[in-house]
C-alpha cells in the first residue's frame, strides 16, 4: 500500500517536472480553449451584426405587371413593413440577375406572368426565389420571409375567392367584380401587414443575471474546464519505450499508478486555473454569491472533472492505439459538452435525449452551476455526481487490474 | 581496389581526421580500432559516401568519389550501421524482401533465404521484435549484402551479442572475403574478434592503448 502511494507521488513529481521543463507550452494550453471560444464568439457576433449594419437586399421582379402586384411592390418598397433589416427594390429581371452576380442582392423574387389572374381563378402559382450562392444564409431568410408572406396570401386568396363566389352569386358583372376584388385585395393585404396588433408582446426579465451573455459566459467557462482537462491529461502523457516499460515492471510500478498521477496533476492544475478564470468572470459580470456558493461550485467542478478524467483514463486503458484513443477521447468529450447544454440549452433537445440526460454528469453539473449562479439557488445535489465518480473509479480499477493480469 | 590519399576531415577548427592514406585490396579484411571519438565512424561514413571529406582523394575500383559518380560507387558498397537498422514490426522475410525491392540487384526469395541461412539465421517467418540480439545483428548484416557489394563497411556489427553468434558472423565474413573477394573494414572494440578476423589492423586517434595491446599480442598494427 505504501509502495503504491510512493509510486504515485513519484510520478506526480515527475509530471510536475515535465510541466516545468515545457513551461513554454503552458500558455498555449491555457489559451487554446479560450481562443477557440473567442473565435466562435466572433463568428457568432458577425453572424448577427450584418442584419443591423447591412440590410438584406432583395430584388422584386414583376413579370405580371398587374395593378395588384404594383400595389404590393410599392407598399413593400416604400414603407417599412418588413423592418429595417430588409431593403427591397423593384428591378427588371436581367438587372436583378446582374446584381445577384455582383453580390449586391441576397436574392430576388419573381412574380410570374398572370400571377394575379391565376390567384383570382384559383389556379396554382409558384413564386420563385433566386438566391445568392455567396449569401446562402440570407437567401434562406428571404425564403422564410416569402413563406410567411405566402401563408398570408393563401388565406387572403381563399377569402377573395369566397368573395368572388358570392359577388358572382349576387349578380355582379365581370368588370364591376374585378374592381371590387381589387379593392378587397388591397384591404386584405393591408390587413395582413397590420397583423402586429394581434399580439400583445411582453418580455420577461427575471433577474439581472439571466441574460444570454451571462449564460454563455458560464457555458464558455464550463467548456474551457473540460477542454483544459483533456489537454493537460494528454500533455502529461509520455510514450514509454519498451526498455523503460520493462524497468518499470521490475520496480513493481503499474500503468494505472502513472495514469492516476496524471489525473491528480491535471485535476489540481485545472482546478486552480478555472478558479482564477472564475474570479475574473465574476469581476466582470458581478453576480452575487455567498461563500457557501463558492464551495458548492468548487465541489461540483471537482466531482465532474474527476469523473471526466476517470473516463479518459478508462479509454486509455482499453484503447492501446494512440490514434484511436485520441479519437475516442475527443468523441466522448464532444458528446459530454454537447449534452451538458452549454452549447444549446437542453430544453430544445429531443425528448428522447432529455430522458438520457439525467444520467450524464456534465448535464447535471452544468445544471447545478446555472442554478447557483444564475438562479440564486442555495442548494445543490451531489448524489448523481458522487455515484458517477464511484462507477468510473471502480470501472477504471477493475479494468486496470484485469489488464495487468492479462499481461502477466 | 580502394585508395585513400591524404584524407582530411574537420568541423570548423576541430580536426577529426588528418592526412589519412591507405589502400585496400580485394579480399582484405582490415580492422579499425581507436578509442571513442577518435574518428572511426567518421572515416567509415566518409568511405561509405555518407559524409564528405574536407580534403583528400578517394578512389574505388578506379572511380573517384564525386557527387556525379556517387550512385555507381554506392552500388559497390555495403554498409552495416552500428544501430540495428531494420523494421522491427516486420518478419525476417519481409525485411529482406522490402530492401530487395529497393535494391539494385533483383533476387528471388530463395536466394534471400539462403543468404540468411548462410549466416545461420533461420527464423525466416518470425517478426523481428521476437528475435534475439544475435539474430537481429545477423539480419542487419544480411540486408547490407543483398546487392552483393565489393566493399563492406562494418560499424561494430556484433556489439552486445553472444560468442556463438559472433563466431558464426566472423566465419561467414571470412568466407565472403576469400570466396568472393569482398574487401572489408571492420570497426570493433573486441580485440579477440579483431585478431581472429582481420589480416591488418588500422589504428586511429592519439591514444596508443590499442596499439600496445595488439602489438603485445603479436598483431601488426598500422597507425593512420
Amino acid at each position, binding site marked *: 500500500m505504501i509502495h503504491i502511494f510512493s509510486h504515485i507521488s513519484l510520478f506526480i513529481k515527475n509530471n510536475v517536472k515535465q510541466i516545468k521543463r515545457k513551461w513554454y507550452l503552458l500558455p498555449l494550453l491555457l489559451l487554446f480553449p479560450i481562443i477557440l471560444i473567442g473565435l466562435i464568439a466572433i463568428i457568432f457576433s458577425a453572424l448577427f451584426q450584418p442584419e443591423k449594419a447591412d440590410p438584406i437586399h432583395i430584388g422584386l421582379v414583376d413579370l405580371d405587371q398587374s395593378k395588384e402586384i404594383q400595389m404590393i411592390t410599392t407598399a413593400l418598397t416604400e414603407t417599412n413593413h418588413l423592418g429595417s433589416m430588409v431593403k427591397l427594390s423593384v428591378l427588371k429581371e436581367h438587372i436583378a440577375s446582374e446584381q445577384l452576380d455582383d453580390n449586391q442582392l441576397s436574392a430576388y423574387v419573381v412574380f410570374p406572368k398572370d400571377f394575379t389572374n391565376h390567384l383570382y381563378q384559383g389556379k396554382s402559382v*409558384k413564386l420563385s426565389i433566386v438566391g445568392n450562392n455567396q449569401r*446562402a*444564409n440570407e437567401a434562406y431568410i428571404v425564403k422564410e420571409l416569402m413563406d410567411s408572406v405566402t401563408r398570408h396570401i*393563401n388565406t387572403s386568396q381563399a377569402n377573395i375567392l369566397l368573395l368572388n363566389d358570392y*359577388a358572382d352569386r349576387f349578380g355582379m358583372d365581370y368588370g364591376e367584380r374585378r374592381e371590387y376584388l381589387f379593392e378587397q385585395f388591397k384591404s386584405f393585404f393591408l390587413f395582413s401587414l397590420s*397583423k402586429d396588433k394581434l399580439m400583445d408582446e411582453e418580455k420577461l426579465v*427575471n433577474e439581472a443575471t439571466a441574460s*444570454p451573455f451571462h449564460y454563455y459566459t458560464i457555458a464558455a467557462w464550463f467548456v474551457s474546464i473540460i477542454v483544459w482537462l483533456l489537454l493537460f491529461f494528454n500533455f502529461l502523457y509520455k510514450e514509454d519505450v519498451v526498455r523503460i516499460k520493462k524497468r518499470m515492471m521490475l520496480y513493481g510500478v503499474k500503468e494505472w499508478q502513472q495514469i492516476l498521477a496524471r489525473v491528480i496533476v491535471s485535476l489540481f492544475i485545472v482546478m486552480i486555473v478555472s478558479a482564477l478564470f472564475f474570479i475574473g468572470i465574476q469581476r466582470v459580470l458581478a453576480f452575487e454569491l455567498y461563500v457557501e456558493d463558492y464551495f458548492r461550485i468548487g465541489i461540483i467542478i471537482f466531482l465532474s472533472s474527476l469523473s471526466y478524467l476517470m473516463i479518459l483514463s478508462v479509454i486509455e486503458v482499453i484503447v492501446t492505439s494512440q490514434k484511436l484513443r485520441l479519437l475516442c477521447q475527443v468523441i466522448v468529450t464532444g458528446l459530454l459538452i454537447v449534452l451538458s447544454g452549454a452549447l444549446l440549452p437542453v430544453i430544445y433537445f429531443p425528448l428522447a*435525449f432529455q430522458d438520457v440526460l439525467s444520467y450524464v454528469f456534465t448535464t447535471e453539473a452544468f445544471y447545478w452551476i446555472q442554478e447557483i449562479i444564475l438562479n440564486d439557488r442555495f442548494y445543490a445535489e451531489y448524489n448523481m455526481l458522487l455515484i458517477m465518480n464511484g462507477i468510473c473509479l471502480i470501472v477504471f480499477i477493475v479494468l486496470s487490474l484485469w489488464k495487468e493480469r492479462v499481461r502477466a | 581496389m580502394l585508395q585513400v590519399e591524404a584524407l582530411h576531415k574537420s568541423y570548423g577548427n576541430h580536426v577529426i581526421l588528418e592526412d589519412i592514406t591507405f589502400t585496400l585490396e580485394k579480399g582484405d579484411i582490415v580492422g579499425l580500432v581507436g578509442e571513442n571519438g577518435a574518428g572511426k565512424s567518421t572515416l567509415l561514413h566518409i568511405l561509405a559516401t555518407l559524409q564528405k571529406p574536407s580534403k583528400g582523394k578517394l578512389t574505388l575500383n578506379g572511380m573517384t568519389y564525386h557527387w556525379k559518380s556517387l550512385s555507381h560507387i554506392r552500388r559497390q558498397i555495403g554498409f552495416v550501421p552500428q544501430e540495428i537498422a531494420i523494421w522491427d514490426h516486420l518478419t525476417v522475410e519481409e525485411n529482406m524482401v522490402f530492401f530487395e525491392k529497393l535494391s*539494385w540487384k533483383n533476387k528471388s526469395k530463395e536466394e534471400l533465404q539462403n543468404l540468411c541461412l548462410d549466416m545461420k539465421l533461420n527464423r525466416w517467418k518470425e517478426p523481428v521484435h521476437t528475435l534475439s540480439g544475435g539474430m537481429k545483428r545477423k539480419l542487419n548484416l544480411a540486408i547490407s549484402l543483398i546487392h552483393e557489394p565489393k566493399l563492406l563497411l562494418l560499424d561494430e556489427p556484433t556489439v552486445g551479442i553472444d560468442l556463438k553468434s559472433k563466431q558464426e558472423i566472423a566465419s561467414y565474413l571470412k568466407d565472403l572475403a576469400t570466396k568472393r573477394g569482398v574487401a572489408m573494414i571492420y570497426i570493433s572494440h573486441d580485440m579477440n574478434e579483431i585478431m581472429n578476423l582481420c589480416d591488418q589492423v588500422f589504428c586511429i586517434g592519439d591514444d596508443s592503448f590499442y596499439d600496445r595491446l595488439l602489438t603485445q599480442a603479436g598483431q601488426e598494427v598500422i597507425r593512420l
Partner: protein
Amino acid sequence: MINIIQTRLIQWKKHSLQLLFWLLFPIVVTWIVVTVGNTFQDDMKIPIGIVLQDDTILAKDLYESIHATPFIRTYTLDEREALHKLEKHELDSVFVIQEGYEEHIRQGSRNALITAYESDVSLAYTPVSEMIMSYVQQDAGRSKAAYAVKELAEQLHVHFDWNWDDLIVRSKEIEKKQDLLQTRLTFPGNGIVHRDEGKNLFQPWHIWALAAFLSTLLLFDWVIKENNPAILKRFVFTNVSPKSYFVRNMYVYIALFFTIDLLTAFAFKYIFDEPLSLTLIVSILGYHLMISLGAFLLALMIRKTFVYYAIAFILTFISVIVSGAIIPLDGLLGRYPWLHFLNPLAAFLDGDFFHIGLGVFIVILLLWYGRKEEYHAAS
C-alpha cells in the same frame, strides 16, 4: 515505382485493419453525423407554454393548430406556472389565448387577442410568434371576409341569409381545396453547396471534408514511423534515396486516397442523393491533394507520433470551426475575405480545384526536395 508499391504493401499488410478503418472513416463518420443530425433535427422541438383562457371552439382550434406544428412541443399550463417556467428557462416562450378570443374575432376586433411572453434567452421566439400570428390572422381574415360578404349583400340590396359560422366553414373549405401558392428557392451556377431545404441538417460533403482532413493527417503518421535515421542510412545504398522513398510513398498514398474518394463520390450519390459531377470530382482531388501534401510536410517536421496526433486533432478542430460547419460563416466572409485562405475547405466547398494552400505546399515540397544534405540527396 512498382517496387515502391510492393514495399508499401508489405508495410500495409501489418496494419491492414487500421488502414481500412481510417480510409473508411470519412464515409462512416459522414453517414453517422448526417443521420444523427437529421434525427436530432426532426425530434428537436421548441418547448412553449400555452395558456388557454378562452373555452370556445375557435380558441381550441387555434390551440390544436399550434399543437400540430411539427417543430413545437406545447405544454398547457395556467398563466402563473407558465411564467414561472419561462423565468427558469424551462420554456422558450409563453402564449396566452385571451379570454373572449372567439368573441373578439366574431366582432372583427383584432387587438391583443394573444399575449406573448418571451424571456431574454428565448432563442426561437420570433419564428414561433410569427407562426402563431399567422394562425390568428387566418381566423381574423376569415371573419373579415364573412363581414365583407354581409356588406356586399347590403350594398347590392340582395337578400341573403347571413350566417358567420357557415361562411367560416365555406372559407376553410376553399382554402383546403386550393393551397395554391408555393415558393421555390434556387441558386444559379453549380457550387457543391446546394443545401436542399430541410433535407439534411449537415451537408454530407462538408462533414466528409472534415473527417477526411483528420483521417488523412492521421494516416500520414507512416512518415514519422519510417523516419528512422538508422534505416534511412540504408536507403543510400539502394536504388531509392531517402527523400524519394518518402515522396514516392506519398504518391502511393495519394493514389489510394483518390481511389477511395471516387468510391465515396458514388456512395454519396446513392446514400445522400448528392449530385455527381466532374467539377465535384476535380475539387475533391484538389482538396485531398492539398491536405495530403500538408500532412506529409507536417509529419516530416515532427519526431513523435503522439505529438503529431495531438496536432492533427487540434488542426481538425480549428478547421471545424473556421469552415463554418457548426456556425455559418456567411457574414464574416463578406467582411474579411482573407478568411477564405485560412479555411482549408474553402476551395472545395466552392467547387474549385485550387486552394492557395496547395500552391504553398507544392513550393515547400520542391524546396525541401531540392535541398542537398552533404551526400545524402544524390542518388
